[in-house]
Structures are given as C-alpha cells and as structure tokens.
C-alpha cells in the first residue's frame, strides 16, 4: 500500500516538474519577445521578419508567437518558434511536434533574422537546410519507471 502511494506521488511529482519546465520555457520566450521592442536590433529583425511572412504566417505569428512553413521538397510542415536556436519543430499529420531541428546562420543575428533565414531555407531548399541541421527528439522523456521495492520481512 505504501509502495503504491509512493509510486503515485513520484509520478505526480514528475508531471509537476515537467509542467514547471514548460512554463519557464514559455515565459522566457515571451520575456525576450516583449523586451525586443525596446532593443533596436531585435525590433528591426522582427520588422523584417513580418515584412517577409505571408499574411497567414504573420497572423499566426502575431497570435501564437510561432508560424508554420511547408518544406519545399517533402511537403512536411515545420513550426518556427521565436528564438535563435533549437526553435524549429517538424510536425506530424496531427500538428504535434515530433522532431526538433537546429540550423542557424553562422554569424550572430537577432531572433527575427534567424527565423526568417530558417523560413526561406525550408521553403526554397529544404534538403540543404536539413543536411546541415542537427536534430533532436521533441517529446520530453517519458516518466521514469517507478519500481516497487518490497521490503524484506524481518
């Protein structure tokens, strides 16, 4: 009974921690974007990005802080989130991120510029972009197996 209670508590703690990590990631991205308007290079980057987004992408970016692009070779959908690295997700048919891709310009650029370069690369030469990119699994690690340890009787 005690073991089951402990296992359940550990699982709840695991989910709690995952939720907090996600919260921190979202808050950090929003903080940087909110303060971008007061930093000139970041603001210029966002202005340039908005100029080059399609009307649909612009509306999505304004509402969600990310926009989707279609890879020109595979027809796959990618989501580019506000950021400068590890911010491209490959989506499955249900729109769920399955794989993360990381490819960035080889010089320091602000977030808007990085996102625009990623968009153009995926829309015009997807294979070349992915050929240089590093990929990583997007789903968080599954909960660890909580094994029930039975105490030995004395």
């Amino acid at each position, binding site marked *: 009974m005690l073991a089951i209670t402990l296992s359940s508590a550990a699982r709840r703690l695991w989910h709690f921690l995952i939720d907090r990590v996600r919260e921190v990631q979202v808050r950090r991205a929003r903080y940087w974007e909110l303060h971008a308007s007061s930093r*000139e290079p970041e603001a210029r980057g966002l202005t340039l990005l908005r100029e*080059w987004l399609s009307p649909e992408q612009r509306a999505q970016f304004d509402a969600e802080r990310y926009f989707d692009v279609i890879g020109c070779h595979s027809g796959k959908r990618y989501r580019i989130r506000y950021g400068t690295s590890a911010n491209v997700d490959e989506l499955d048919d249900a729109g769920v991120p399955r794989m993360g891709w990381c*490819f960035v310009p*080889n010089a*320091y*650029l602000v977030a808007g510029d990085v996102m625009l*370069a990623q968009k153009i690369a995926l*829309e015009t030469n997807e294979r070349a972009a992915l050929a240089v990119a590093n990929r990583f699994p997007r789903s968080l690690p599954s909960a660890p197996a909580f094994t029930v340890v039975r105490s030995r009787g004395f």
Partner: protein
Amino acid sequence: MAIQIVMDRTGDTRHEFDAEDIKAVAAAERRFNELMLAGFTAASRTASGDTMVTRTFDPAAEETLFYPRLVGG
C-alpha cells in the same frame, strides 16, 4: 528604387540604389558578388509573394535579401 537588405548584428543594413543609374547598378552587382563569395544566400520575392533563392544578380529585382550561410546549431 531597388534595395538590397543584408542581415547583420544590427538587424539589417539596407542599400538602396537607382536601377536606372549604371554606376549604382554596377556597385550593387559588386556587392551581390562579394556577399555570394562570403557565403551569403540571396532571396527575392515574386509578384505573387513567393520567396525564391537567386544565385545571379538581377538588376530588375526590387528587393533582395541576404542571409549568412546556415550551419547546424
């Protein structure tokens, strides 16, 4: 006026030139070739709004965007 936009750490640097001015067009072509040699990618937009990558200087392009070479992050 045509424009070349080069991404950099300031956000971007914009170079406007008169497509009717032979000297200005020559300078724009020189800049285009220098950026290509430095590994930049040049992109422009079609009338329908689609983005296309270009490898040769087009004096008729109204807007050309340059971004540095992409590498794995």
